[in-house]
């Protein structure tokens, strides 16, 4: 019986053979591999990458996209990237901050495969780094929140207190204070980028303690926005502008990543053989976009926020000295401006933020 089955299986393989040959005739010019730490349907970080890469696959001829979701930030990620390379991938996007080591390890073993990693660190010959400069952009969000709040208490949920997240919080508070000197930002850390139950409880805690506008830096804003919306609060989204669909009443505005133009440039450079590994950080107008405003935002607030966003796109940075942190220590001296590659170095909260870094 087993021999009969083997025979039948062999016949099937023969039948499929010509089909495979036909497919090989339309071989893609470039196979892109992407690994995500969560699900692409998260209305957030992972979705922003998925949306951009599917856009690239549509815009650039001959691109095939391989994706793997829920890849843990462990050496397991290396295994998945290796298997994508075996399937012919020549451009890999390890899309989470925690894939730094695994991505670089695989890059060292395959010098003919190119990598683009969202984070920091030095580029290698086949390993570029990039990120959206969200920190200055949160200043505009702070302006929106500072104007919309009635309790002068803004809430912020942080997943893990990395430098970039602290920078986002600081810019948010600075922006809020610029239009509302009484505004304070309360920070709650959940301890992980994607712990839904904790995020719901954190949002509830912020609302219980009097905040009426909540922003966040977690992988998916969905749970927080829904919790805040259910209790009648206002929300500012992050990671993906699509999140506004979750809060028809309380949405103020938000930030989302628009990676597609940059990714298209990278894909074309790999196809043309002209890949250059760089560290690229772009802000509003390029990699970061401001989401449309919600129905409750009055036109004068919209004008203020749009003006702030335009200033930032022109190069304004909110991190200009003198700046004191919330313990009273001076962190930026008079006349000094923090540069964009220092955005990952924050280890303090600016005065006005209620929270403890560690």
């Amino acid at each position, binding site marked *: 019986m087993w021999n009969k089955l083997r025979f039948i299986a062999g016949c099937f393989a023969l039948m499929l053979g010509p089909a495979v040959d036909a497919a090989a005739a339309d071989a893609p010019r470039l196979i892109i591999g992407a690994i995500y730490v969560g*699900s692409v349907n998260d209305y957030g970080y992972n979705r922003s990458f998925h949306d951009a890469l599917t856009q690239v696959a549509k815009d650039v001829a001959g691109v095939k996209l391989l994706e793997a979701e829920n890849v843990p930030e462990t050496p397991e990620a290396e295994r998945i990237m290796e298997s994508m390379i075996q399937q012919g991938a020549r451009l890999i996007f390890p899309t989470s901050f925690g894939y730094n080591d695994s991505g670089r390890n695989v890059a060292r073993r395959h010098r003919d495969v190119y990598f683009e990693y969202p984070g920091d660190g030095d580029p290698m010959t086949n390993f570029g780094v990039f990120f959206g400069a969200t920190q200055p952009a949160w200043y505009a969000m702070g302006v929106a929140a500072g104007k919309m709040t009635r309790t002068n208490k803004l809430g912020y949920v942080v997943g893990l207190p990395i430098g970039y997240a602290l920078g986002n919080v600081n810019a948010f508070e600075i922006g809020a204070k610029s239009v509302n000197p009484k505004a304070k930002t309360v920070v*709650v*850390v959940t301890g992980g980028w994607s712990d839904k139950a904790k995020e719901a409880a954190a949002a*509830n805690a912020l609302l219980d*303690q009097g905040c009426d506008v909540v922003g966040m830096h977690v992988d998916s804003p969905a749970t927080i926005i829904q919790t805040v919306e259910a209790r009648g609060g206002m929300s500012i989204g992050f990671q993906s502008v699509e999140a506004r669909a979750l809060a028809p009443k309380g949405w103020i505005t938000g930030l989302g990543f628009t990676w597609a133009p940059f990714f298209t440039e990278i894909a074309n450079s790999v196809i043309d053989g002209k890949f250059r590994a760089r560290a690229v950080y772009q802000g509003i107008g390029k990699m970061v976009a401001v989401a449309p405003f919600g129905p409750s935002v009055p036109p004068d607030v919209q004008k203020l926020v749009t003006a702030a966003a335009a200033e930032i796109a022109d190069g304004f940075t909110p991190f200009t000295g003198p700046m004191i942190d919330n313990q009273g220590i001076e962190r930026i001296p008079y006349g000094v401006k923090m540069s964009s590659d220092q955005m990952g170095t924050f280890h303090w909260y600016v005065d006005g933020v209620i929270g403890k870094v560690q």
Partner: protein
Amino acid sequence: MTTPLVLGVLAGAILSGTSLLYATLGETLGERAGIVNLGLEGVLLIGASVGFAVAVVTGSAWIGLGAAALAGGLANLLFGWLVVSRRANQLASGLALMFFGFGVSALVGAPYVGAVIGGLAKWRPSWLGRLPWVGATTLFNYDVLTWLAVPVAVLVWWVLFRTRWGLAVRATGESPAVAFAAGRNVSALRYQALGAGGLLAGLAGAHLSLSLTLTWSEFMTGGRGFIAMALVIFSKWHPLRAIAGALLFGGAEALELQLQARGSDISPFFLDMAPYLLTLLVLLAWGGAGRVAAPGSLGRTFYGAN
């Protein structure tokens, strides 16, 4: 400690504690029959994912809730078949069930990640909502599972300690050989206890996805199954004490976040660890009576007939 902090912690404790209480009650039923189910985490996840998936597909959170309970019951019955009929080692089978639950829940839930549902409807009696301090919080604004949490705990206590079936189940847990000699069907009783416990565990998982977070993501229970197992011991296998345990742990988790929201000077990393530290301390202080309070044959396979 001011009123908003205390109320906030209480509100958070009740919300977080609901799923913990149902999970603890479910595990208590099984352990009272002598079966320790280490796979509780997997059963919670199966309940959460099936409940969410069915709620998305049918558009009704109620049907999702029912499906979650059924799925939890089936998962426990499968476990029951392994440990009762096939007489497999309970600890190993429980861990296998846990991993099975991880995989099945991820498989079932994957197509529905990111789907938006209405969730279980919340309801608060209007006279309570008008009380000062209460109106702005989540206090007393609960869905059906939270409203019924304490009544269900009382029901489980009553069934275990005031009915003949409950007596038979407890006898099976203390000494199946004696129960068998007295004419009880040990296997049937264990299946029934596990099935009922699975229903409750399925509801516990569903509360997470259909009410607390309104979403599904892999491993979203975050270790609650294991906390529930510790709570079973803390409550000395007694459903009414489980209420206190669930409130305590739910409160610890809520306190951690409320303190941060209040601007406490304690490190957020330390606060993150606090609920688990509390569980350890509580077990150290009150878990010592485990020898005396545990069902006599907990974890032991019965090799007699039927």
